[in-house]
């Protein structure tokens, strides 16, 4: 038990760390290229400077993301060797596909980041476009591997439980990919958009109200605010699909104790076996959300065998509610921006708008983490839904808690180091002003046109 808990916590911690960097790898290229495109098209020096600075920041985050991603690849084997030994031939297919995308991304990212000085303007721009495509392709392959764990198919087992036949397309296009993959790609765009915008919002709150900051706020914020309503729609669809494919997970999320129609939607609260305490109940809403009618039957935990129910119900429920709550708040932020832009072609004057944007990045990251808690804790006790328990997958190796402690120290250093390096870069850019591109790392003398 202790080994299982240690392995799960270690996996969760390293995944939570990596997912933020992975999101930057998926979505930051699109922000950079938008700025780059504006810079080239309109001969806009500010947009160009943003593109260059963001690409230099990406050089740091991508390096950290590449190594923390490698750690996860090792952890598959180090922590879950029995899962990999038994299902690697099915689960691995998605990662083989991912290899192509990640490789191509790493190559063009290097060409783009280090090509500012010598490559011509548009040639340089186009060298960055593959990053956007491979970022999305990479997200597809990794997330479809996870959705396969939720809705496994495309393999045949023999009597001993060994995979004897696989159908790669069925593995790759398992039922859950349709909603999990877009949900994560949109999440990446939201996280990165709000995160980058929040940095410029903080700058503006500190009085740096120049055009560079305005643009640095507007480009990522617009992209994130466009992604948000789509995300709420995708997420809503996903929840309905989960209710169908993984009723235990759904019952856990919504704290449904008894199967039946006319289910109450509980907002917040503590899940107990005799109902939800201290929550805001909305009668019939849960049934309505699942099947658009209050008569929709929803499976409750009473119909799930006790040893197949997800643990930590309250955590699951609150994580889900917090994710939806943050998503809704971000939607309101987007509407505020849209309203102001429609009325006066400008961002809202209110300092509260900037304050809201300033915390939106952290909020989006929290929502991302909560979403993954829902997916992963909600699937427990299974590592492959219905086929293999997490307890059967875990290594028997000693010293996982020790490794966890070491990883904690190492990643704390990594996180602190990355933030300090990025802050130092930004301070240097500010101090050097217009001439910032000569002395800093990754800095070209000037972009050739």
């Amino acid at each position: 038990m202790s080994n299982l808990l240690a392995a799960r916590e270690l996996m969760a911690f390293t995944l939570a760390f990596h997912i933020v960097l992975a999101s930057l790898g998926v979505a930051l290229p699109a922000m950079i290229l938008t700025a780059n495109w504006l810079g080239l098209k309109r001969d806009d020096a500010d947009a160009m400077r943003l593109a260059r600075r963001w690409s230099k920041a990406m050089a740091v985050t991508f390096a950290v993301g590449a190594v923390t991603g490698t750690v996860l690849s090792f952890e598959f084997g180090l922590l879950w060797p029995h899962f990999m030994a038994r299902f690697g031939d099915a689960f691995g297919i998605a990662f083989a596909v991912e290899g192509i995308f990640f490789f191509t991304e790493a190559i063009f990212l290097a060409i783009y980041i280090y090509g500012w000085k010598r490559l011509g303007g548009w040639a340089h721009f186009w060298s960055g476009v593959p990053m956007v495509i491979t970022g999305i392709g990479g997200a597809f392959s990794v997330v479809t591997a996870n959705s396969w764990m939720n809705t496994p198919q495309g393999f045949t087992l023999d009597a001993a439980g060994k995979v004897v036949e696989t159908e790669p397309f069925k593995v790759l296009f398992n039922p859950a990919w349709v909603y999990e993959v877009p949900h994560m790609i949109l999440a990446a765009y939201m996280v990165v958009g709000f995160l980058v915008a929040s940095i410029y919002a903080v700058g503006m709150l500190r009085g740096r109200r120049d055009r560079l900051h305005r643009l640095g706020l507007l480009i990522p914020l617009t992209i994130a605010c466009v992604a948000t309503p789509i995300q709420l729609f995708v997420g809503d669809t996903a929840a309905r699909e989960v209710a169908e494919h993984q009723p235990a997970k759904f019952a856990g999320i919504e704290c449904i104790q008894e199967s039946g129609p006319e289910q109450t939607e509980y907002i917040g609260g503590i899940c107990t076996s005799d109902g939800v305490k201290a929550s805001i109940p909305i009668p019939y809403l849960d049934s309505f959300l699942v099947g658009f009618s209050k008569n929709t039957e929803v499976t409750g935990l009473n119909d799930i065998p006790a040893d197949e129910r997800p643990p930590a119900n309250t955590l699951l429920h609150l994580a889900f509610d917090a994710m939806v709550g943050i998503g809704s708040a971000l939607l309101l932020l987007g509407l505020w921006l849209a309203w102001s832009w429609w009325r006066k072609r400008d961002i809202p004057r209110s300092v509260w708008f900037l304050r809201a944007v300033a915390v939106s990045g952290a909020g989006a990251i929290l929502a991302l983490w909560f979403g993954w808690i829902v997916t992963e804790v909600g699937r427990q006790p299974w590592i492959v839904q219905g086929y293999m328990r997490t307890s059967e997958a875990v290594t028997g190796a000693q010293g996982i808690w020790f490794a966890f402690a070491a990883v904690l120290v190492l990643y704390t250093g990594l996180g602190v180091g990355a933030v300090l390096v990025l802050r130092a870069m930004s301070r240097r850019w500010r101090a050097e002003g217009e001439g910032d591109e000569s002395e800093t790392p990754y800095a070209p003398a000037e972009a050739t046109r």
Partner: protein
Amino acid sequence: MSRADAAAAILWTGATLYALFGGADFGGGFWDLLAGFGEHKGAAPRARIQRSLTPVWEANHVWLIFILVVLWTAFPEAFGAIMTTLYVPIALAAFGIVLRGAGFAFRKSVQRLSYRRAMGAAFALSSVLTPFFMGTVVGAIAAGNVPADGNGDAFSSWIQPLPLLTGALFVLAGAYLAAVFLVADSARAGDKEMESWFATRALLAGVAAGAVAMLGLIALHGEARYVYDRLIVEGLPLVIVSILCGFGVLGVLLARRRRGLRPLAAGAVVAVIWGWGVAQFPYLLPTSLRIDQAAAPSATLDSVLVVFAIAAIVVLPALGLLYWLSQRELLGE
């Protein structure tokens, strides 16, 4: 050739490319570590190493991911067996990878000398330790210390002469390749001083790697008889190629020529890797798990082959472009 053998050949191809390019990047860290500790001492070689590594190290690193993915997809049982036995050196290598990548990326982005030193030390030290632990993993596999159903001894499986010597060989081979590549890079940049600085070190590393390889052969005889016996019969042509290439590099360096240096050095390393493959054949884990026993179902192997074919069409030209741009000094910070 069966599908399983083809998948194993892909695995070995990935290992070869990782050894050549990733290995050379680790070797860069090795020379960074030994470049000197004074205020200005070592600044020139470190700058050269940084310029050469910066645009390419992440792409080179992906070959490691490639190896892991092919291993767990095409040969999942072998992956499980290796991971449940050699988790100690593998976990240490993973730590080293994090420290190296972060140290390298952070070092050039901080200004203060003390920070740069700390980051540089993390980068350089882990550049030596990481390939060492990877080498112990390979040596332990060759020595037959990984049982097919896993859970071999966590320590005695790799704390043995052969795995430890293989670890040392990995470090030295990387240092050797790096020095040779950096000779060429310095020559192209017209930096005579660095050219001869790295040429001297290429020579030393080459001799040291050759000596450790000889010791390894003796250990192989003692600890991995199956592999040894095949190496000196079926693998003999490759051993001879490796030795000839190695002496070729020494000759070219001593004659103060540069032509053919890189292909010869690469040839020496590639021949060893394929010699090892031939010597293990048909085992993936000598002598408990054969390639065909470990192989995934055929549809999965087909996917691996298709993915590799796509990679050959998409990734290799892109990689070629990256190297071409980098070699023509069109990429820089």
